């Protein structure tokens, strides 16, 4: 049994919130450069150039890449040989978010009640997903999620015989429906199988993968490639103003499911592909 003080987790969450909101993912910046070479439309090239310039300014001036610094989604993989001490785990995560958003001058975008609203003033609570895994460490992944793209996310309970064609059709339908709203170039997270909520969580977790990293399963890796190609043929383009660079990557996760169904969840992420991790 290894003891870990939850204040160590709090500090990690604080730092990860700040850094991932301010420093752009270098893989994403490389993808913008590649897009600039491939785009023929001057507007598309100009948008990508602007995004590169924005990332430079954000890092230099220590400003968030995007003003929507998101609702904090935190994945915790907790080793089963860990004994957490020093306070409650959820409170520690929320305190980390509170400090990160205050001290990092990040926007407070969370309301107390989904219907009657009222800003909580400190961007808490975070959405926390915990898993118990073998080992004696705690892996923390912070993925702040902006709602321009979160609002363009969908779940469909497909039929068991819908196959890869059915999945492709649904994902493309979602991307077309989203159009310019989720701030393309987008990253598309897809969760296939499990149950209703499992599919959604898998789609979200797919958005914590390094940009463009292929699934370890050959059939899913092929699906990712095919979907990326098809999405970039829609013409939506950067910011929906037309072009070839609509998505930077498609990441697919899958899980066994019930004989009667095939849930498919599509979680879209904007080009501010923010995720950062640390193991304590």
């Amino acid at each position, binding site marked *: 049994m290894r003891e870990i003080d939850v204040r160590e987790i709090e500090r990690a969450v604080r730092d990860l919130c700040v850094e991932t909101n301010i420093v752009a993912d270098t893989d994403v910046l490389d993808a913008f450069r590649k897009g600039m070479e491939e785009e023929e439309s001057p507007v598309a090239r*100009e948008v990508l150039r602007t*995004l590169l310039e*924005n990332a430079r*300014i954000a890092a230099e001036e220590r*400003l968030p890449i*995007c003003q*929507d610094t998101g609702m904090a989604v935190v994945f915790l993989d907790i080793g089963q040989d860990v004994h957490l001490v020093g306070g409650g785990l959820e409170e520690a995560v929320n305190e980390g978010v509170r400090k990160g958003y205050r001290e990092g*001058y990040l926007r407070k975008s969370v309301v107390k009640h989904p219907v009657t609203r009222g800003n909580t003033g400190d961007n808490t609570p975070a959405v926390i997903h915990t898993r118990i895994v073998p080992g004696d460490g705690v892996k923390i992944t912070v993925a702040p999620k902006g709602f321009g793209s979160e609002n363009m996310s969908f779940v469909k309970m497909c039929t068991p015989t819908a196959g890869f064609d059915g999945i492709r059709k649904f994902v493309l339908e979602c991307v077309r429906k989203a159009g310019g709203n989720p*701030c393309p170039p987008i990253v598309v997270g897809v969760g296939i199988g499990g149950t209703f909520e499992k599919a959604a969580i898998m789609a979200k977790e797919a958005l914590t993968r390094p940009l463009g990293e292929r699934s370890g399963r050959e059939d899913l890796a092929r699906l990712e490639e095919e979907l990326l190609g098809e999405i970039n043929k829609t*013409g939506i383009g950067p910011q929906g103003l037309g072009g070839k660079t609509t998505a930077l990557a498609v990441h697919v996760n899958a899980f066994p499911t019930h004989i009667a169904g095939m849930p498919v969840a599509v979680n879209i992420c904007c080009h501010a592909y923010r995720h950062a991790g640390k193991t304590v």
Partner: protein
Amino acid sequence: MAAIRVTTPLTDAVARKLKAGDSVLITGVIYTARDAAHQRLTEAVAKGERPPVDLKGQIFYYAGPSPAPPGKPIGSVGPTTSYRMDAFAPKTMELGLKGMIGKGPRAKEVIDAMKRHGAVYFAAVGGAGALLAKCVKAAKPVAYADLGAEAITELTVEDFPVIVATDAAGNDLYAAAAA
């Protein structure tokens, strides 16, 4: 692309001359307003109250900035998705609004109202909040401070870069891209 410079408030002649696809640099005063501010403003007007700012010739920027770090007038301030303001936008144009800055396509009702009132819809680059913040020289809270990031803030901007997404004749870049 050579950009067209405009200053606020926008006159009818200037607004109607801008065409979809034009790059524009805005200088002057613009006002941030998003979901909650639109709801409050239109509810107040429906009750016969005056809006907290005179909208004649003005531009609404659909945005909720991040807090200003020490020594800066504002934090990151990029556009939010515009369709959420669609239900309120025709009313704001009726009150004199000449321009909207946001991102993403608008509803037919909004474009129809733009044609009626000679208003323009500009797209700013979503997720370029740090770059856009550099064009903001001053920020002053105007109304609904209790809404936090959703309050109406008066921004003094210099060469704020936007693209005409939909012009006052109804030409629409988003519709063209989706076709």
